[in-house]
């Protein structure tokens, strides 16, 4: 049975290590925060200018001056610091963030990612996504394996305008996990969701990948 969204987030959370600074994208990636192991200490960055993001506030704690990059109300922690947007993206662009988990519309076998626009549809903008994929040390994509039409989202080449070129290090889909060792290597299928077969993955994947289960 394919992983649920929550299980996908749980699987991605296993990539977090003690002491990591992590940026979680808007949408499904925010679920990763619920699965951070209790034995490790991770600091979440929010690109609107905060390091050390806490949980959602209680009704009493809501503060309009304290939101995350998804514009959700949040809270601070004892470790929190605030800074400008320029300093925040200096942190991101300068390679100081260890890991980012992002959603995607398409990922290509060469590590390209598309997650910001569909030609012909209203484009909302890339926000901080291009900065994150260019600057963060390791990029994990969390996405459904196929789109609503059942077509593979892990492709030979992206058809949509790119967010970044050769930047993805790992894909966690509802069917399994692909990883590559570096940006010159091919992706390897390293894990399957329970009950999902290698054949099922192959039939639903356009991209070339190696198998290393």
């Amino acid at each position, binding site marked *: 049975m394919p992983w649920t969204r929550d299980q996908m987030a749980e699987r991605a959370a296993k990539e977090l290590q003690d002491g990591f600074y992590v940026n979680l994208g808007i949408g499904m990636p925010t679920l990763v925060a619920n699965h951070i192991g209790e034995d490790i200490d991770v600091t979440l960055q929010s690109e609107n200018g905060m390091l050390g993001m806490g949980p959602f506030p*209680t009704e009493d704690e*809501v503060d*309009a001056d304290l939101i995350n990059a998804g514009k959700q109300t949040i809270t601070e922690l004892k470790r929190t610091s605030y800074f400008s947007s320029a300093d925040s993206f200096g942190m991101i662009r300068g390679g100081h963030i260890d890991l980012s988990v992002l959603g995607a519309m398409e990922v290509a076998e060469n590590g390209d990612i598309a997650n910001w626009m569909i030609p012909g549809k209203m484009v909302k903008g890339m926000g901080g996504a291009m900065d994150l994929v260019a600057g963060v040390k390791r990029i994990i994509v969390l996405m459904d394996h196929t789109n609503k039409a059942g077509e593979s989202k892990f492709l030979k080449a992206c058809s949509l305008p790119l967010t970044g070129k050769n930047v993805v290090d790992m894909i966690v889909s509802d069917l399994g996990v692909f990883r590559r060792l570096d940006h010159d290597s091919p992706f390897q299928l390293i894990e399957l969701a329970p009950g999902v077969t290698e054949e099922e993955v192959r039939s639903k994947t356009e991209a070339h990948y190696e198998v290393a289960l």
Partner: protein
Amino acid sequence: MADKVYANAAAALEGLTVDGITVMAGGFGLCGIPEKLIAALRDSGAKDLTCISNNAGVDDFGLGLLLRTRQIKKMISSYVGENKEFERQYLGGELELEFNPQGTLAERCRAGGAGIPGFYTKTGVGTLVAEGKEHKEFGGETYILETGLVADVALVKAWKADPYGNLVYRKTAQNFNSVMATAGKVTIAEVEELVGPGELDPDRIDTPGIFVQRLIVGQGYEKRIEQRTVREAA
């Protein structure tokens, strides 16, 4: 010293609201936006504005007010998702739009304020953003050239100010405000509280007064929340 404190937002904008100017407006979403100054800019009637702002407000708040009245000719933003009127004008070809990656936008403002006319970044290499831009290799990697931005008028929102124009921001309401404050030919700040000389800790000032030419104290801040997300109290 020339007094920096003005009676209200309209007074602070006086003489500056010329058609066709470029305006920076701080804020991220609706957090930390200069809401009084934006409303006064709407009331001024200035049109054909180029607005540099990370977002475009919502239909009835923030820069959305200026969209409704068709005062904006062009937006330079990173994300404009929350605004139906924006969508209508853009799809109808009535509004120009230049998307910048959020970090590139922030750095362009910082560069403009710091006298840096251009800088190289990895962000956007290999994407639509890189088209037409100079590419250059550093250490075997490819980067693109982005340019500094300045504005005729920068509108920022801070938490507190002193009469010298020194500003401090509160939590994530800082965002683009401190960066844009450096990049306005004229920078106008609106604040929630004006404190006396010497009441701000000189080690904690986010925007030194040199960047702020005009200042108002806003009344009755709305501080609208876009995504009120809460958990149950334990």
